[in-house]
C-alpha cells in the first residue's frame, strides 16, 4: 500500500516535471542469455522530450536494451528507473502502469497479419480501453493521417511495402497517446528516401508532441539527424555518449571506425 502511494506521488511529480529531466535512468544493467553476456553494466540516462539514439553494430545488444526498457525482458541485475521508480523492484502490475504511456515500434513492424491497417492501429484502444468502435475508427484515421497512410486504412499488412508497414507501426504506437516511443531500427531495410521520411516523421512527432524518443539504429546519417543525445553500445557496454557534434569529434577508435564506416581490428 505504501509502495503504491509512493509510486503515485512520484508519478504526480513527474507529470509536472520539466523538459530535459531524466525520464528513464538505466543503471548497471546486466543481461545474459545462457553463456552469452549481452549487456554489461550499461548506464544510460534518457531525458524527457529528447531523442536518444543508441547506435552499435549488429548483435551488440541494442534491441535487448530496448526490450528491457519496454519490460519485454527482465534484467539479471541492475536498475531501470522510470519517472523515479525502480521498476525492477516493484510488481509487474505496477511496472505496467508506469509503462502504459510507452509505445514501441518494432524492427519488423510486427503488424498483426490477420487484421487490416485500421484494425492494427485501433487494436490497443479496442482491447485495452474498450472504446466504442466509431471512436476507435476516428482515432485510427487521425493517427493514419499523421503518418500519411489514411488511404490504406482498409489494406492488409501483406499489401504494404516495408516503409508503409513502418508508418502504420508508428501510427499504432501513437494511437495509445504515448509520452515515450521506442524505435527499433526504424529505417533498416528502407530506401534512402523512405528512411529520410521516417526520420522526418520522428522529428515532427518530437516537435509537435514533445515526445521522448529512444531510437536504436546503426544508420549514422539518421542518428546524427534525429538524435539529441547519442550513445554507442559496443560488446555490451556503452563506450561513448554525447550530443551529435561531440560524438563526431570523438577520439575513440571504435567510434571513429563506426562513423567513418571503415572496419578494422576494433569492430
Amino acid at each position, binding site marked *: 500500500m505504501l509502495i503504491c502511494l509512493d509510486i503515485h506521488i512520484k508519478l504526480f511529480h513527474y507529470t509536472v516535471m520539466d523538459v530535459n529531466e531524466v525520464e528513464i535512468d538505466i543503471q548497471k544493467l546486466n543481461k545474459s542469455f545462457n553463456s552469452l553476456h549481452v549487456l554489461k553494466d550499461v548506464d544510460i540516462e534518457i531525458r524527457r522530450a529528447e531523442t536518444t539514439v543508441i547506435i552499435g553494430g549488429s548483435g551488440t545488444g541494442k534491441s535487448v536494451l530496448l526490450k528491457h526498457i*519496454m519490460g*519485454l525482458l527482465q534484467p539479471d541485475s541492475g536498475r531501470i528507473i522510470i519517472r523515479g521508480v525502480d521498476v525492477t523492484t516493484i510488481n509487474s502490475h505496477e511496472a505496467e502502469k508506469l509503462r502504459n504511456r510507452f509505445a514501441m515500434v*518494432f524492427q519488423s513492424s510486427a503488424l498483426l497479419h490477420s487484421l487490416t491497417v485500421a484494425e492494427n492501429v485501433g*487494436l*490497443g484502444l479496442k482491447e*485495452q480501453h474498450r472504446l466504442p468502435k466509431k471512436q476507435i475508427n476516428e482515432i485510427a484515421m487521425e493517427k493514419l493521417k499523421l503518418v500519411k497512410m489514411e488511404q490504406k486504412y482498409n489494406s492488409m499488412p501483406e499489401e504494404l511495402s516495408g516503409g508503409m508497414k513502418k508508418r502504420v507501426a508508428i501510427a*499504432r504506437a501513437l494511437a495509445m497517446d504515448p509520452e515515450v516511443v521506442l524505435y527499433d531500427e526504424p529505417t533498416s531495410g528502407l530506401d534512402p528516401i523512405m528512411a529520410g521520411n521516417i526520420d522526418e516523421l520522428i522529428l515532427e512527432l518530437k516537435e509537435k508532441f514533445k515526445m521522448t524518443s529512444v531510437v536504436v539504429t546503426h544508420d549514422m546519417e539518421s542518428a546524427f539527424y534525429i538524435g539529441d543525445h547519442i550513445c554507442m553500445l559496443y560488446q555490451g557496454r556503452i563506450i561513448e555518449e554525447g550530443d551529435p557534434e561531440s560524438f563526431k569529434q570523438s577520439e575513440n577508435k571504435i567510434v571513429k571506425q563506426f562513423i567513418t564506416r571503415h572496419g578494422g581490428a576494433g569492430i
Partner: protein
Amino acid sequence: MVNPLEYIGRNSLNLFQLVGELIQLFIHTLYWCKQALRNLDKIFYFMVRMGVNTLPIASFTSLFVGMVMVLQTGYTLEKFGMAESLGAIVPIAMARELGPVLTALLLAGRIGAAITAEIGTMTVSEEVDALKTLGINPIGYLAMPRFLACLFMLPVLVVYADVVGILGGAVVTTAYFQIPVTIYFDRMAESLEVIDIIKGLVKAAVFGVTIAIVGCRYGLKTSGGAAGVGEATTRSVVCSFVSIYILNYFITRLWM
C-alpha cells in the same frame, strides 16, 4: 559420450518443467476466460474453423473405423452365433473410446498444429511482443478464444463421429452378416446408456483443453524463425498425442 544419468536427469527436469508450464498456462487461460463474453465473435470464428476443417476427415475416419470394427469382430462373433451383438459392441466402443480418442487425435494433428504454427509465427515475428506493448495480454488475446473453441467444439465433433461410426457399422452389419438394421439399433438401444455418451463427451472436453493448451504453449515458446516454427509444431503434435493417450488411460481407469 553422454552420461546416462545426466541424460535421464536432464530429460526428467525438462519434462517436469513442461508439465509445470502447461498447468500454469491452463490456470492463466482459465483466468482470462472472464473476457469470454467480450470475445464471442473470435470464439465462434475458431469453433467454425475447427469444425469445418475437421469434419471431412472426422467423417471419413469414423465411418471406416465403424465398418472395420464390424468386420474384425463380426466374423468371430458369428462363429459363436452372437453376430447380433454387433449392435451393442460398436456403439459402446464408439461412444466410450474410439469416438473421443480418434477425433481428438485428428484435432491435435490438424488444429493443434495450426494453433502452434499460427502463434509460433506471431511469436518469431514479434507480433506477440507488439501485443504486450499495447497492453494486451497474449494469453487472453490468443490462447483464451482457442481454448474455449476447442473445449466446446471437440465434444460436438465427437457426437458427430459417434453417429457416423455407428452408421458405418450398421451398413456393414447388414451387408455382410445379413442382420437387419432394426436389430442392430435394437441391440444398441438395449446396451448403450446415456452415461456412456456423457463419459465420451467428458473425455472429449478434456482432450480439447489439452490440445489447445499444448498448442498455445509451444506457439508462445517458439524461437528461431521458420525452422523454429516447424520444430515447435512437430513437438506440439507429439506432446498432444502422448497427453491424449495418457489422459485417456487415467480417465478410463477412474471410471472403472
